[in-house]
């Protein structure tokens, strides 16, 4: 059934719709419970529920930073503090004329967004532990400033929180305000998570190199997410101050930061429902047992340790019934090259390297290399280990900047380095060890390859505006086409880490095809494949080139090279040893003695 739908180009794998609504069920239950909660008419329950909603507004945003982008931001309480003080000080009117609370809340969101960028900026340069430390530092500094800046914040004495007027007056009215905002926050983050921005965040987390090759702009994306997350934290801070009625720096302990952070990890990275449940559990749990309150942070820490050591997937993993269904045992990847015509544009241009030199210290990895890859041909690049094959690919795809020489595509000179800009030149590649996102579905992995073809912006994705929906529809169609071209459409919904190694190689090719590449760089695609799979791979590669895409193939399987290549270049010690048709190479005396063996 998938076969026929995929051929028409607009089908979806069987069961796609149903799994989609399956995922919505927990949200619906929580929404109904949240709306019906005032029926209890118990102000204590109301207080806890309001607190859970406020925490979730912050955690929802932080989830994109921690759970999706994988940045270890443990000091996020700093933003809650900032939002709380901004709202309180502006509504109190001690330092300046008092503002209405809603306007103050809005300003807190803006301040939170700005500060979120400042707190997050080091993530662009620093490694995980360093970044964790800087967020920790921010959390300490903000509290100290609040203590010291007495004229505005009231120092240790504190300041009164804002009171929202009717219909959101303290009590159930205020609860509904918080609940409504929490619902909106859930909706927006879920939209982002399901968009190309959400997938890009996960790609940055788990397959950064592949994200770069797909043209994902990490700095811009992270800054946007930090801004969004900071704005939500600012709003949460304003609501928190109102709930507390009076705030002092003591209210913003590091324990709160830990709660937010651990709620996400207990919930599971890359999930929305998991962290939502995590937040509710962590907020509610200590309330049920009074003796637990003193031990609550101890318990959070114990939970974190248990999660990290025993269940890194968190609650979301437990709820992921779909991926526990067994897969078919003896699967075969059968590519269908006839689908390529729908994917490739057939307008390749010539790739030429002229006199490229790249040395690492004293070693000349590439030593004056000239290479032309013509449209519509498969060009093999072979040579002994250390002859500079992968290094050549890395120069072309911009991971290395050569010391001299030029790389051109058609008339355009490709800037040295600048790996991320290669995707816009329609240069796609695969990697020696497949770089896929294990926790994402095969379909989502493939969609990563088409990221730069989206038109809608971050806000459009957040609100699911029409242009974004069109992007997503187009991306899904293309991804399904690419998957059926490489023969993996039946595995579209399966989590990628459940696939076999050989299947991952085809996933990478499908991802590369999403770009409609004019040049496709393949780095040992046949490694680890069976003889039959290699034969099918060869046919697929050949069809890709015949559809107009030039293919540069680095490979050790001599049979595959001589079978499908139109021309072959042999490298030795970073220099061209020989170049020509497969027949010429096969009988080239030096090549035979240096590499092929007699």
């Amino acid at each position, binding site marked *: 059934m998938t076969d026929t739908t995929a051929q028409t180009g607009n089908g979806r794998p069987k069961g796609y719709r149903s799994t989609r609504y399956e995922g919505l069920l927990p949200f619906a239950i929580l929404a109904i419970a949240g709306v019906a909660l005032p029926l209890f008419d118990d102000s204590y329950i109301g207080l806890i529920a309001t607190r859970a909603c406020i925490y979730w507004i912050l955690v929802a945003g932080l989830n994109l930073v921690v759970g999706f982008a994988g940045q270890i931001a443990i000091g996020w309480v700093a933003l809650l503090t900032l939002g709380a003080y901004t709202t309180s000080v502006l509504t109190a009117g001690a330092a300046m004329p008092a503002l209405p609370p809603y306007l103050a809340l809005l300003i807190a969101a803006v301040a939170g967004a700005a500060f979120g960028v400042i707190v997050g900026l080091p993530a662009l340069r620093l490694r995980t532990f360093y970044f964790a*430390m800087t967020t920790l530092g921010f959390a300490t500094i903000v509290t100290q400033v609040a203590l010291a800046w007495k004229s505005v914040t009231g120092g240790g004495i504190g300041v009164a929180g804002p009171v929202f007027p009717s219909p959101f007056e303290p009590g159930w009215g205020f609860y509904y305000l918080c609940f409504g905002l929490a619902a909106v926050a859930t909706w927006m983050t879920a939209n982002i998570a399901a968009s190309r921005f959400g997938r890009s965040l996960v790609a940055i987390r788990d397959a950064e190199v592949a994200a770069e090759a797909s043209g994902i702009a990490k700095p811009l994306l992270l800054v946007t997410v930090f801004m969004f997350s900071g704005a939500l934290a600012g709003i949460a801070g304003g609501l928190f101050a109102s709930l507390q009625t009076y705030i002092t720096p003591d209210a913003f302990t590091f324990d709160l930061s830990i709660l937010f952070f651990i709620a996400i990890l207990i919930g599971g990275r890359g999930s929305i429902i998991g962290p939502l449940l995590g937040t509710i559990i962590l907020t509610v749990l200590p309330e049920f047992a009074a003796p637990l309150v003193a031990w609550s942070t101890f318990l*959070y820490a114990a939970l974190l340790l248990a999660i990290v*050591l025993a269940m890194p997937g968190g609650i979301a993993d437990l709820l992921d019934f779909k991926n526990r269904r067994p897969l078919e045992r003896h699967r075969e990847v059968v590519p269908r090259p006839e689908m390529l015509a729908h994917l490739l544009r057939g307008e390749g241009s010539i790739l030429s390297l002229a006199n490229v030199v790249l040395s690492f210290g004293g070693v000349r990895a590439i030593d004056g290399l000239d290479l032309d890859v013509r449209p519509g041909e498969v060009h093999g690049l072979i040579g002994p280990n250390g002859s500079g094959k992968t290094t050549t690919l*890395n120069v072309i795809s911009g991971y*290395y900047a050569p010391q001299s020489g030029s790389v051109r595509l058609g008339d355009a000179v490709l800037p040295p380095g600048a790996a991320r800009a290669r995707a816009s030149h329609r240069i796609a590649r695969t990697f020696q060890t497949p770089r896929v996102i294990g926790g994402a579905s095969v379909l989502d992995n493939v969609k990563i390859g088409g990221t730069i073809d989206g038109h809608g912006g971050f806000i459009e994705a957040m609100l699911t505006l029409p242009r974004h929906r069109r992007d997503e529809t187009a991306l899904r169609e293309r991804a399904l086409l690419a998957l059926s071209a490489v023969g993996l459409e039946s595995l579209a919904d399966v989590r990628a880490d459940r696939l076999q190694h050989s299947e991952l190689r085809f996933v990478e090719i499908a991802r590369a095809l999403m770009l409609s590449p004019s040049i496709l760089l393949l780095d040992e695609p046949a490694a680890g494949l069976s003889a039959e799979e290699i034969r099918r791979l060869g046919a697929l590669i050949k069809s890709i080139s015949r559809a107009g895409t030039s293919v540069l193939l680095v490979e050790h399987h001599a049979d595959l090279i001589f079978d499908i290549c139109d021309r072959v270049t042999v490298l030795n010690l970073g220099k061209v040893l020989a170049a020509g048709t497969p027949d010429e190479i096969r009988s080239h005396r030096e090549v035979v003695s240096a590499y092929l063996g007699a």
Partner: protein
Amino acid sequence: MLESIVSYGLAVGAVYALIGITYNVMFTASRVFSFTAGMLGMLGGVLGALFIDQMGLPVIVGLVATLACGAVIGVVTEIVTVRPVLKSLEQHLYVLSTLAFALLVQQFTAIEWGTEARPFPRLFKIGAGFLDQQFWLPLLACAVTVIGLELLYRRTLIGRAFLAISEDNYAARALGLPEQWLRIASFMLAGMIGTLAGFSGGELLLAFFGNQSILNFYGFVPVALGGMGSNRGALIGGLALGVFQQTANFLVGGVFAAVAVFAVFIVVLLLRPEGLAGALGARRV
């Protein structure tokens, strides 16, 4: 005033330097940045006060008992938070596991010992004014540790083995070095150095559970700026940080001193993520 800035600054700086060295000792053995460094410093103060003040043990017995506890906690850290995670693919998990373990110990301390800062006993009645023992004791501890580590690394076989695994883990294992035991030994050593830091600086910093996060951060600043793994960087950076902090405290007040240290830390790291003396790692494709 100058004398008090220098003596107090150097003393606190020596504690920072020792915590920095604690980070380094764990890092060189396992490539793990561990949140437990500040925890060990905090425990040094609390355990010292517990053994000597509360239980009335002689000073030297109290010191030995504190260091022994540090060693045990070091070993537990390795077994519980480092070993299981090193095997897994996602190596940054150690950030979370060590953070969780450090928090567990801190919270336990807060509940059992209390959240108020308690005084640390006066150990020796030597020196007065700016030569008071609370000022020279951390410096002495720091000097002993640095010289001891240097002798260990340069002169003994086990010390060379430490260097070997930090230089090239795989090659060292191929040579037949017992990597796991060396790692345990390093964490044990780190446990002792960390608690020694808290013990020697006990009179200045008091026996207080909140010292953990302060020491975690200010112990990390010198190693991050000096380059991870460099004890020289930790020593110079730690002492400089202590004096800088005290100067700023006197001149512009505590909060701005904290903000200033933090600003310098962030700016330097953004300009040179590998630290002032470190080198960049290799490319990952």
